[in-house]
């Protein structure tokens, strides 16, 4: 699903793409459920966990940081998972199921414009939610902002791309929006686990951590931790993210059907 730019056949492609984005943004704002899980829930989880006194005590097995510190990157990853994997696939699959993409094929605009708008909006929502989590962590729980800001941003953009690519693949493989929800949920829990929602990757046994770090959200968790601590994220972690994004995007493009 590399095809966000294919609407360029039309002489007025920018105007059409803007109109599609505007319409999809309106529709996105009319989905309170999605908005809650993507924009509110990750930060809410951080607030709940941060309210537990023991989460605000330094932990030796986490290298002296507090659990609430370790959970900020986890909730950042949760935002990308919620948006890319939970919220987006049923929408896109539903558009195909209802013939909305097909109807658009009969106009000068390619249906890829809708797909591009959906990915852009869910990507932006994930990033917005991540920033909210960072801000609330800083203000409410004194979690320091990432000290390697650029490295953090790079890792965050890469993991958001992976999440959207994974969501696109779920849309591609699901024939109905119900199926997309089901497949999304099946993939959701392993991804949540690998992101460290139940047990931060730092606190996992070595053997498990190695496996998890080969997965996109495990690699992203480590990359974000490194950037938060002030280091540039390790090239292996970033490489894992790039590889996953490329493979998932290629698979989604291979299997996606417009009708």
């Amino acid at each position: 699903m590399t095809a966000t730019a294919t609407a360029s056949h039309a002489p007025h492609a920018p105007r059409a793409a803007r109109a599609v984005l505007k319409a999809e943004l309106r529709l996105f704002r009319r989905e309170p459920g999605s908005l809650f899980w993507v924009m509110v829930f990750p930060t809410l989880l951080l607030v709940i966990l941060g309210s537990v006194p023991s989460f605000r005590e330094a932990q030796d097995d986490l290298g002296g940081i507090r659990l609430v510190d370790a959970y900020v990157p986890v909730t950042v990853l949760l935002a990308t998972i919620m948006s890319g994997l939970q919220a987006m696939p049923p929408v896109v699959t539903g558009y195909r199921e209802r013939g909305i993409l097909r109807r658009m094929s009969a106009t000068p605009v390619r249906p890829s414009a809708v797909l591009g708008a959906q990915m852009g909006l869910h990507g932006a929502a994930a990033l917005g939610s991540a920033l909210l989590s960072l801000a609330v962590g800083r203000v409410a729980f004194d979690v320091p902002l990432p000290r390697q800001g650029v490295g953090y941003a790079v890792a965050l953009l890469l993991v958001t791309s992976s999440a959207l690519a994974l969501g696109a693949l779920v849309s591609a493989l699901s024939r109905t929006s119900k199926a997309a929800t089901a497949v999304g949920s099946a993939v959701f829990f392993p991804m949540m686990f690998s992101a460290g929602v139940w047990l931060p990757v730092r606190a996992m046994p070595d053997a498990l951590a190695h496996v998890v770090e080969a997965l996109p959200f495990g690699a992203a968790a480590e990359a974000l931790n490194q950037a938060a601590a002030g280091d540039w994220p390790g090239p292996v972690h970033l490489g894992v993210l790039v590889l996953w994004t490329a493979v998932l995007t290629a698979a989604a493009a291979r299997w996606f059907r417009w009708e």
Partner: protein
Amino acid sequence: MPPPIIEVRGLRKVYGGRAVVDGVSFAVEQGEIFGVLGPNGAGKTTTVECVEGLRVPDAGTVRVTGLDPVADHPRVTRVLGAQLQESELQPKLTVREALELYAAFYATPADWRPLAERLGLADKSATRFAKLSGGQKQRLFIALALIGNPRVVVLDELTTGLDPRARRDTWRLIEDVRDSGVTVLLVTHFMEEAQRLCDRIAVIDQGRVVALDTPAGLIGRTASSTVISFTPSVPLAPADLAALPRLASATEKDGRITLNGTDDTVDALLTLLARRHVTAHQLRVTDATLDDAFLDLTDTRPGHHHGAPA
């Protein structure tokens, strides 16, 4: 005469080894309402989807204003508006938003307000797609097909699922569209609709054009272009009826006889009645409808039509 606005020649489309469309040819002239009529599964929708450029023909050529709908898809979409069978819009998109969105797809779109007015959607502009009735949804799809100021619109099973009143309203709209200078390609399986609206009709059955004519021409060429019904004052012998010339079918119900035939049948019947001194009460002689013509053209069961009277 200007060149045809749509030209289909030898169109063939195969799915799973079966030819769904098998050598279909027709030409739609500018300014007419051209019907594609046929039973379910005859290949009507596949045919018009090739015209819309949504499917790639396996053989044959399709031209819309001289353009190839697949190779020149972007240019064809600017002159051809489409209403697709079984397509929807985003459930929470309002009528106004849908019209504005689709207007933005075209370089010189129609103003959506008068269009919504004309289609009776003006007071629904803030209503979401999911809350519209079936008739309102169809009118919105007509509006979306027209919003780009096309030269030709393809309407596929537009009135399926509408109640009779909504269907008649929609027919008036289609006539208005044609009167405004837009050519209409209409896919339907409703005889009444085709008979009322179409200037010419291609009857498609099992992937082939079995007839192409005006509605009157199609009716006239059937074996039974006239329907005669009456209640005889005394019963008539079945053998006498069976002997009537050009008789396609004869049925009797509660003493009332209905004959399908031609003018020759009528003449012979009147002679027969006079000779036997039989009075024909409530005698009705009517032209057959497109229904009869259609059954005649598409029913391929052996021995079914032109069969012996009952």
